[in-house]
């Protein structure tokens, strides 16, 4: 009995706050998603109505496509960039500390700061990027003002801010690669390229699976950078699932419909995680 009191004395406050602000609202959101409610008037129970409306909503599918485009642009690039930077930074040469600091420091920049910076750097008239391109003889691009390029710019800025994350994870993984194995391979006449693909890369596969899942989940939830750059434009080209949800819930006050979109997002996230894990298991990577 005393143990129980002591135990809950330790874990109680933290556990109550976390569960109270996640499990409870998550269940409430499920209930909300079955209702039609604007927050003020009487809620009406509509059952699966919101979900039926969602799967026939052209705007929702456009948001899914936009989110998918960003995910495809961002995730592979972020994983490969992280791997490449980690390999490059994992050596003892001069200035390596300077290089690491330079590549990692953008990680602390917020979405708001990154968004403002992106708007300036990629400004069609005054931006540094177009200015450099002009010197190289490339015509000025519309970037964030061009529906075909806006998502690319957002992906580039995400990469800039988050390269540190995948790099650090891969760096930690590289430390774990057994040195004697590499030494043995070298003795056997393997060149660096061969030892990388035959020894290092398989060793890193659990990490690759993990960062792929992690970055995919993050990509599907893209909102902040869209809000601070394009606000969903131009021509709704950067309106993501979370942006759609935000507008439905907090501009049009469709709490039920917004909750249904949130659950759709949850299911998509879960589905992708399962697919990646199953795929990795099939390929014999023991990640999870």
């Amino acid at each position, binding site marked *: 009995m005393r143990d129980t009191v002591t*135990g809950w004395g330790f874990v109680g406050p933290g556990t109550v706050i976390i569960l109270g602000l996640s499990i*409870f609202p998550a269940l409430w959101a499920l209930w909300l998603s079955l209702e039609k409610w604007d927050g003020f008037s009487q809620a009406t129970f509509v059952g699966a109505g919101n979900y039926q409306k969602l799967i026939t909503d052209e705007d929702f599918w456009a948001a899914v496509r936009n989110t998918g485009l960003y995910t495809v642009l961002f995730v592979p690039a972020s994983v490969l960039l992280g791997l490449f930077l980690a390999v490059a930074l994992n050596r003892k040469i001069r200035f390596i500390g300077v290089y690491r600091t330079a590549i990692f420091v953008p990680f602390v920049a917020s979405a708001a700061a990154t968004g403002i910076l992106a708007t300036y750097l990629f400004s069609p008239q005054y931006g540094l990027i177009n200015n450099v391109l002009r010197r190289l003889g490339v015509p000025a691009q519309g970037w964030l003002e061009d529906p075909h390029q806006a998502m690319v710019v957002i992906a580039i800025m995400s990469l800039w801010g988050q390269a540190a994350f995948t790099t650090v994870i891969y760096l930690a993984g590289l430390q774990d690669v057994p040195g004697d194995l590499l030494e043995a391979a070298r003795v056997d006449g393997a060149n660096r390229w061969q030892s990388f693909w035959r020894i290092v890369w398989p060793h890193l596969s659990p990490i690759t699976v993990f960062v792929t899942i992690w970055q995919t989940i993050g990509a599907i939830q893209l909102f902040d950078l869209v809000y601070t750059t394009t606000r969903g434009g131009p021509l709704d080209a950067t309106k993501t699932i979370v942006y759609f949800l935000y507008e439905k819930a907090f501009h049009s006050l469709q709490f039920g419909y917004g909750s249904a979109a949130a659950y759709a997002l949850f299911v998509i996230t879960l589905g992708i995680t399962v697919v990646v894990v199953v795929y990795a298991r099939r390929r014999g990577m023991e990640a999870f």
Partner: protein
Amino acid sequence: MSADPVAENMPAVIADRPATAVAAPTRRRRRRRPSLWHLFLAPTALIFVIPLVQMMLASFSPAKDLVTFPPPFIPSRLTVSGYIGLFTGTGIVRWLINSTIVAGTAIISNIVLCSLAGYGFARLHFRGRNFGFLGIVATIMIPTQLLMIPTYILFSKLGLLNGLGAAIVPWLATTFGIFLMRQFFLSLPAELEEAGMIDGANRWQIFLRIVLPLAKPALATLAIFTLLGAWNDLVWPLIAINNDAAFTVQLGIANFQGSRRTEWSLLMAANAVATAPLIIFFLIAQRQFIATMTFTGLKA
């Protein structure tokens, strides 16, 4: 994402790995050609810092520089007019204070609540422990977007909306923090605490006098995680706070984009002011930041 061997071996990883990951280059200089990697690393490093350099330079540029064509990378002259406009014409001071209150409260609360809960889940045996921990694990799967609407309604009923409380409450305790502290306490040798028991100390005394003083590295990691999250959070304050006086600095500068779209020197000054505290912290405590990122990556 269930418990896996990586997670079980975590403590060694937090304690040792980040340090080696950022180990300073050895000074032992052998005579040989400079590495070819410089040809890749130097330009890459430059590309990563240029946006921040541009931000600083632009914040000190006269307004006309930033709308000339083509714009000069180096300002024609240095001026603080952007900063003057920012500090006199906007609520930035209020917002900086608000963000400091939010992040400060979040850090203190996380350190207290997560180290308590982490210790409880790691070391104590009591009824409902596994159930409680399972609940915490389950929250990893829930995307925050799912929680926005009900939390908004809940906070509106509690009268928390449009005040600083709205920004603070969701950050009082984090799943990350409980995981981190639990893993850390699992890594400590139990003999230390047994010695305390023999001396007749109770659990609380052991926790405060023996265990907590050893937890400083983990607490630093937790503080950095909370600082980054609470200081940079945008979407939740955006939804929950609709009142200028209670804006966080991120929300304040994000809203400039609508109202002051063309005042680039002011925008860049705001950006610099909002980002500089974290950049300075990062330069001072790079190791701990990297440890934080590594743990974020390995926790799942």
